[in-house]
């Protein structure tokens, strides 16, 4: 299915958000996630099913003012 990850269209076979993070190499990283602009806590990622057209945000700590 086609999804958008951080603004870029991608093809994935991952069923869940947790699987997607592993597939993209974020397995061990401390990141936070949202799907279609709703926050998905780390503890819910394994249950969060992905569907075609989903928009995923994967964020990490950065400099800020």
């Amino acid at each position: 299915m086609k999804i958008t990850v951080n603004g870029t269209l991608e093809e994935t076979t991952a069923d869940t958000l947790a699987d997607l993070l592993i597939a993209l190499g974020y397995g061990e990283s401390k990141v936070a996630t949202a799907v279609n602009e709703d926050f998905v806590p780390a503890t819910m990622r394994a249950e969060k099913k992905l569907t075609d057209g989903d928009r995923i945000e994967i964020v990490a700590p950065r400099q800020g003012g």
Partner: protein
Amino acid sequence: MTDFYGVELGSRLMLGTAQYPSPAVLAEAFRRSGAGVATVSVRREAGGGRAGQDFRDLIARLGVRLLPNTAGCHSVREAVTTAQMARELFETDWIKLEVIGHADTLQPDPFGLVEAARILTGEGFEVFPYTTEDLVLAERLLDAGCEVLMPWGAPIGTGLGLSNIYGLRSLRAHLPDVPMVVDAGLGLPSHAAAAMEMGFDAVLLNTAVAKAGDPAAMAEGFARAVEAGRLGHDADPMEPRDMAAPSTPVLGKAFLE
């Protein structure tokens, strides 16, 4: 010392972490500033998360309290989701809430700000709203559950200083017991001193230090200005007057008729 959501800080200077020429310069600026709070953000990650981890390590070494922001968010939904992601990443209920209303001036969207503040305080966040000096908006934010306010000095990144002295003075006078941080628009240590002399509890700045030719020296300049301004406020300043009044005693002067 003022407390911010039950936390007493050793310094009245809060400092941003963006735009420094290097991580080493950032760390040195923090050391010289004595700041007790660092603002941070969340941004899209790429490459497996290494950039985030590097920054996390850097700020851990600063030994300061973190205040994550929702910088750049233009809608309530974006701001709320960003705050939720920041809380998970930084493990703090503190959030500097920005809901931007105008792309050029970066001024807050007062309506979205109040709505987002209400949602976030309902979820247990301790909200530091980036707001204007508008008194009515300030009262709405307090009604929404905010216990701290962060009125702007001037638009973000301008370095113009306190552009509405009357408005800030009026806000401070009407809400004397609310902890308030003047956030954004400060360019020089004298701007910070002026805010402290007016009775604000702290100042938050970033660009003025990060973009100075010598960020560490500027950080120390701001630290001293904040202390000087606060001392001046606490010392009960004299009233200004229009007519001159001699400070040296007239009585006993030679050649007096």
